[in-house]
């Protein structure tokens, strides 16, 4: 039996439209799943029972009155880097564990204006950096979910929520989405305003949706994309109709497979799944071309990432550096180390970004999209965060961001979706990137793949068991109005 919590966003909107279920029914199904699974999954940081129930009741009325908006009644969650008016917004840090913003982030306002039902604020690595292992991977609770949008991804993977939002600076949406078998979209830099979102690195930060289908990420990007005067870096480029071409299929689509960088350090099982997925795309009309990215052998991408991240992070946290001891141990190490990035290294990194972009410019002159693995391996053990590349183990923090940080450095839109499993049953994700502001191409390719393969429909064992065994309706009267978990920042791992 399928519960409402197991439906995708577009499926939920259809059952609302046809009157088969109401937003209140769907919310209660999600709250039941959260109640049963979240003690293990730990995706939620702050749960908003009463507020969500009130919003869902309002949405139910709107559907009855034919006043439904684009995401009317869709339960969703926000990474706790995203400010919400009147609701604790911690950044995953004890420094802000009682911070109640006076205004919501633009992204949150747009979701509220579209009728979404905010269910909870979600776990994040402290200030979106480090390697907090407090949220496990729903596919195997001994495995790491990655991050920093760990709660956002785990909530979707565990079918607690159909839609969440995260941020991505070096891979914080794409990497955990790949590890946890869900769809994550990192839009073009500036496509989604960051006003009201706690920054990690101004020039690399992105915000985007996480869902279980490519179609849902397109639906939700439509709501949150667009210029905002409150964010001077938000793009003025017009927002496409992301659903217009999503069914266009693969005929005539030119796909580039990089011959440099992405396949150089890669677990064989991930490579096999990646190449199989590329063959599927090719056999259904896509033209596949090899694409060189020569700058990646000259310009050190890790150095660019670290120099920019460290310099901007140090500046951002200058005002609270004196409270160093209040940060978690992992972020303390980062913050101290960030003090020693020179201005010349920072400026060199900002300038060298463009050399990599020029490779991508040449690539997009001959292809519509680049297709790569989304991670170098599958999810590592939580108590031993190392990347397994065949029989070799490599430090995750040294190679884990290889496929993703380059996309943040270049600033193009990328999407990941599941394309297979390893021998342990852990998900493997493909990454598709396109020219700036061409998120529509990412959606077109991803949606076409999801019509041909159903890896995204496979359930983690804990969800399968829950869907089979539990159908009790969640009862509001048995619960408090809000649950606030304490912020967890400690980690025994010294990964940086």
């Amino acid at each position, binding site marked *: 039996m399928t519960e409402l919590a197991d439906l995708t966003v577009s499926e939920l909107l259809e059952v609302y439209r046809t009157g088969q279920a109401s937003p209140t029914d769907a919310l209660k199904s999600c709250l039941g799943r959260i109640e049963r699974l979240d003690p293990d999954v730990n995706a939620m940081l702050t749960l908003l029972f009463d507020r969500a129930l009130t919003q869902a009741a309002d949405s139910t009325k709107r559907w009855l009155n034919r006043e439904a908006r684009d995401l009317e009644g869709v339960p969703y969650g926000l990474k706790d880097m995203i400010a919400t008016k009147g609701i604790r917004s911690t950044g995953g840090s004890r420094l802000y564990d009682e911070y109640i913003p006076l205004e919501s982030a633009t992204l949150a306002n747009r979701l509220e204006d579209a009728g979404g039902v905010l269910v909870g604020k979600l776990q994040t690595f402290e200030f979106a950096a480090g390697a907090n292992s407090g949220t496990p991977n729903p596919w195997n609770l001994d495995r790491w979910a990655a991050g920093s949008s760990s709660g956002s991804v785990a909530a979707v993977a565990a079918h607690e929520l159909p839609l969440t939002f995260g941020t991505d600076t070096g891979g914080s949406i794409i990497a955990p989405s790949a590890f946890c078998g869900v769809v994550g979209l990192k839009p*073009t*830099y*500036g496509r989604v305003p960051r006003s009201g979102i706690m920054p990690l690195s101004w*020039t690399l930060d992105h915000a985007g949706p996480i869902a279980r289908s490519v179609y849902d990420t397109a639906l939700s990007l439509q709501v949150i994309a667009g210029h905002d005067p409150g964010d001077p*870096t938000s*793009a*003025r*480029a017009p927002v496409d109709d992301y659903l217009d071409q999503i069914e266009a299929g693969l005929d005539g689509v030119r796909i580039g497979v990089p011959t440099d960088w992405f396949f150089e350090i890669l677990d064989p099982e991930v490579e096999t799944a990646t190449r199989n997925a590329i063959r599927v795309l090719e056999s259904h009309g896509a033209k596949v071309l090899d694409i060189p990215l020569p700058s990646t052998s*000259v*310009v*050190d991408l*890790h*150095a*660019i990432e*670290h*120099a920019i991240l460290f310099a901007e992070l140090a500046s951002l946290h200058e005002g609270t*550096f004196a409270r160093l001891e209040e940060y978690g141990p992992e972020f*303390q*190490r980062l913050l*101290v*180390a960030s*003090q*020693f990035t020179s201005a010349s*290294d920072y*400026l*060199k*990194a*900002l*300038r*060298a*970004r*463009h*050399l990599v*972009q*020029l490779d*991508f*410019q040449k690539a*997009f002159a001959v292809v519509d999209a680049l297709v790569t693995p989304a991670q170098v391996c599958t999810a590592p053990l939580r108590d031993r965060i190392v990347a397994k590349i065949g029989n070799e183990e490599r430090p995750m923090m*040294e190679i884990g961001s290889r496929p993703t940080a380059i996309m943040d*450095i270049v*600033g*193009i839109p990328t999407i990941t979706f599941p394309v297979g499993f390893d021998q342990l049953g852990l998900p493997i994700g493909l990454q598709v990137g396109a*020219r*700036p*502001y*061409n998120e529509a191409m990412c959606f077109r390719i991803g949606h076409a793949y999801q019509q041909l393969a159903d890896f995204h429909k496979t359930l983690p064992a804990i969800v399968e068991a829950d869907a089979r065994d539990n159908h009790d309706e969640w009862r509001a009267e048995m619960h408090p109005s809000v649950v606030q978990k304490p912020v967890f920042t400690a980690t025994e791992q010294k990964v*940086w």
Partner: protein
Amino acid sequence: VPEISLNTEPTVEAFEAMAKNRGVVLEPARLAEAVEMHAKFRHELDRLRAVRLDFLPPYIEPATALRWIESEGGLHDRAGRPDGK
């Protein structure tokens, strides 16, 4: 060809002086940890430092990367003309 060739290995003493210059006081253990983290990435940083960026046109400035994104990846210039033509 590297532009510069310096011994760039980070040291506790160098970091201590940098911290002092900024008015930041750090315990020796924290300084040592910071040095260790920088040493881990030093080879990569040296590779970045060795990348040659010309003084003469075409200029690559710190903001060029963000302008490139605005231009849809070089499709047009800031005035909206195709590919800078």
